[in-house]
């Protein structure tokens, strides 16, 4: 008697034909999901699930009629829909909660959700947090705008941008480093986490690049605004402002002026540009980025041959992100194996759940913002410079409890539920025995939606 515990006595209701077939199979492990990816519609759904926050029935129908290949074109070629400007707090700063909600709102409603997934990908790669960057200027907000606009450009341009990004200048301390007494923080993470990966550089390389990169300062403000800190006692303070988004400025007097340094095997005079070019000249960089993209979109453990194929293509394209992503999405690995092989991150789970329910209003945003703390993914507040861990790291007693409670809360908040049949679309109608059985026994659409959103199937992508 599987699936009856605790819900005995509920009315057995027929649902879509696909789930009426009771499933059997051994309990526990040893079984994998049957991949439906031999069908074009399922492939398109798989693509959209992995590159967006899930497709509605209408979106899936449109994409299916376009076909898999044209859907890839559309994802890669459509310029990102820009979010409405975030209104700076007091005209100068940010509220972390409001800024997170601003982004969540755009994730929920943007017509180009792939751009938001890529912005999130880069937020997780070239990461910064508001705690260290601070909230008294727009820097952390600007960084978000930057990754949205640059997400599908080339790695070289992105490296130049991130090195002089005001939030990053602060987050990894390049803004306070000097050639005479370098701060190694940015140099190390640039190599370890942004380009080469650990093991592909030496401690001497970290020191050399730290010296070579020194000299950048935060951008100079071109205005200021007075803010009232304490209305009662009339305490005010002036904060710097910038009339437009700015990058760091180079102060030659803070730069390294010593003898030529040896960096990654080459001894010469180095500047930021030369350091970044040298990083792009290392085969390890393309491998590292390609692997990260493959882990994010394809499989938790891509094999070496696959990664090398992607990396070769990426490097020969001049590190063009569109080329790399097209290679990934059209690769046999993307659609032939690893079905449901990835776990949705907390934000992906919440946004895809709310979109599935058609609930994308401010209350839904507030709910997701509140739950992000319990699920370990607060935007603009990654756990450390490595960003958020993935897949199995999203699964613990704590996070599963929070995901179930989020499903309950999101349903409570949703007045008009879509037909529960549409939930199956989000699950490809490929259901485990328990999910199918519980859906069959559910008394109403509310219960069906709860089962769908809380199911293991919906946690996966």
């Amino acid at each position, binding site marked *: 008697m599987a*699936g*009856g*515990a*605790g819900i005995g006595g509920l009315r057995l209701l027929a649902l879509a034909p696909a789930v009426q077939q*009771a*499933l059997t*199979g051994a309990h*526990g*492990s*040893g*079984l*994998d*999901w*049957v991949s439906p990816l031999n069908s074009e519609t399922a492939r398109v759904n798989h693509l959209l699930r992995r590159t967006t926050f899930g497709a509605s029935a209408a979106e899936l129908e449109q994409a299916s009629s376009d076909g898999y290949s044209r859907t890839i074109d559309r994802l890669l070629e459509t310029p990102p829909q820009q979010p409405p400007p975030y209104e700076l707090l007091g005209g100068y700063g940010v509220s972390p909660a409001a800024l997170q909600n601003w982004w969540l709102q755009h994730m929920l409603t943007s017509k180009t959700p792939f751009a938001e997934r890529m912005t999130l990908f880069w937020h997780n790669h070239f990461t910064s947090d508001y*705690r260290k960057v601070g909230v008294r200027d727009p820097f952390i907000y600007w960084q978000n705008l930057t990754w949205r606009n640059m997400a599908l450009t080339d790695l070289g341009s992105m490296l130049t941008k991130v090195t002089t990004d005001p939030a990053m200048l602060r987050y*990894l*301390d390049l803004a*306070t*480093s*000097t050639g005479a007494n*370098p*701060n190694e*923080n940015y140099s*190390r993470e640039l190599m*370890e986490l942004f380009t080469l990966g*650990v093991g592909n550089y030496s*401690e001497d390389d*970290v020191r050399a690049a730290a010296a070579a990169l020194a000299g950048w300062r935060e951008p100079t403000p071109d205005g200021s605004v007075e803010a009232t800190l304490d209305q009662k006692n009339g305490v005010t303070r002036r904060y710097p402002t910038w009339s437009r988004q700015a990058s760091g400025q180079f102060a030659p007097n803070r730069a390294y002026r010593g003898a030529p340094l040896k960096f990654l095997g080459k001894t010469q005079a180095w500047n930021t540009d030369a350091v970044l070019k040298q990083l792009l000249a290392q085969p390890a960089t393309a491998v590292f980025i390609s692997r990260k993209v493959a*882990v994010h979109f394809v*499989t*938790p*453990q891509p*094999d070496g041959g696959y990664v090398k194929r992607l990396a070769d293509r990426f490097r020969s394209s001049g590190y063009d992100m569109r080329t790399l992503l097209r290679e990934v999405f059209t690769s046999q690995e993307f659609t032939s194996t690893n079905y449901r*092989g990835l776990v949705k991150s907390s934000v992906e789970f919440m946004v895809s759940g709310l979109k599935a329910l058609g609930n994308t209003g401010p209350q839904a945003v507030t709910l997701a913002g509140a739950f992000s703390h*319990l*699920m*370990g993914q607060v935007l603009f507040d990654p*756990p*450390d410079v*490595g*960003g958020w*861990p993935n897949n*199995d*790291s999203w699964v*613990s*007693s*704590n*996070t*599963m*409890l929070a995901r*179930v*409670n989020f499903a*309950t*809360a999101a349903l409570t908040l949703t007045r008009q539920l879509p037909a529960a049949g549409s939930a199956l679309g989000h699950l490809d109608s490929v259901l485990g025995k*328990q999910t*199918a059985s*519980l859906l069959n026994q559910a008394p109403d659409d509310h219960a069906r939606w709860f*089962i769908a959103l809380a*199911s*293991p199937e919906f946690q996966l992508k």
Partner: protein
Amino acid sequence: MTEEIGINRLDRRSFLRSGLVFGAGAAALAAGYAAVPDAFARAVYAAKTNGVQNDHVLVMIQLAGGNDGLRTVIPLTDPKLHDLRPKLAGMSLAGALPITAEFALNQNLKNLKGFWDQGKLAVVQGVGYSQPSFSHFESTRIWETGDPSLRQVNGWLGRTLAQHYDSAGHPLTGCACGATDTPGALRDLQATMTVISDQKKYGFTGGSEVEAAVGALYQGTPGIYGALFDSSIATAGESVNALRTSAANYQPQATYTDQEQLVYASKNQLASALQLAAELITTGTGVRLLHVTLGGFDTHYTELTRHDDLMGYVDSAVGAFYQDLAAHGMADKVLIATWSEFGRRPKENASGGTDHGSASPVFLIGSPVKGGLYGAAPSLADLDPTNNLKYTVDFRSVYQEILAGHLGADPKEILGESFDRLGALQQPALAY
């Protein structure tokens, strides 16, 4: 046999191919979770004739980001300190709390100084390993797994849990308090453990009906994450019930302050995490191995006030925790130990901070401890070729000490080899 849709059989080879990844970018596991069903964990335990029988508790406190040992236990008489740290040294020494003629604790470690005076603080100096990694992630993994070769994927506490405790059905035996995901030190495919980020919100909204439905939903889940999903939900259900009882029975006997936001706009998360630990320990939940984390130690810039504030966080949280345990008559059972992935560079940088370093001190705190200095402080006049401290004590000696002297679990089974004991515990050895 009725029709099967949605699932098909996965052979062992496919598991090996699709094995899960441990942590960020680390080596793949030998097999997926699904290849190691929960029953296997029980079988492993049942095969042990000598699982841990005592009621000793270990609380590991992670100081994440790389704690500056030279500002934690300050070498008062090392003449190089001022040369290497013109900005940091003077202020470090100003209010420092001397424990010997040569060493002082950070000025904010007032409760720890009190423990020192009572013989309840062991300071192990120069703890590290050879050929140190300066990567947060690699060095954290080395400390978590107890394996500098980076081959081991399970955590040293996770392995202890799997091999020496019956965690199946007792999900609170191992617990991470104040975390959202399982810390690497506690991970093991064959052990069950609980993760609680916020106790007030740790329960199923909608009560037992929802809990039962979800319990039914997560049975025999297919796929490589299937067993992990199922055991996480099962653990949630069991631990929610246990926590309801513990919350009702717990009477705090100390004041935990977690509301100041001194460091990076963050509250003292250690305080609330240790209060939850105290609740679990004092209400008889069967908790044995606990892990808590305080972040913010990656002090590359303006280290002075930041690091002092962090020391204050640690001190106030540990002080309240010990007081609470003592008032409940539980202090004798509990060993507290700190760890951090590395120390920091002896020479300060242009930002008034310090870059990644190597060895740093470990604190062993509590009634089971034989107070004093252990190991040798690395000399600032004799740095390694990367200008970092030379370690004097292998970090696995600390684990050896804890396993053999406090938990009573054979360290060789956990660590793969034997390390020198420190002699820092009151009880020299337990049977195992």
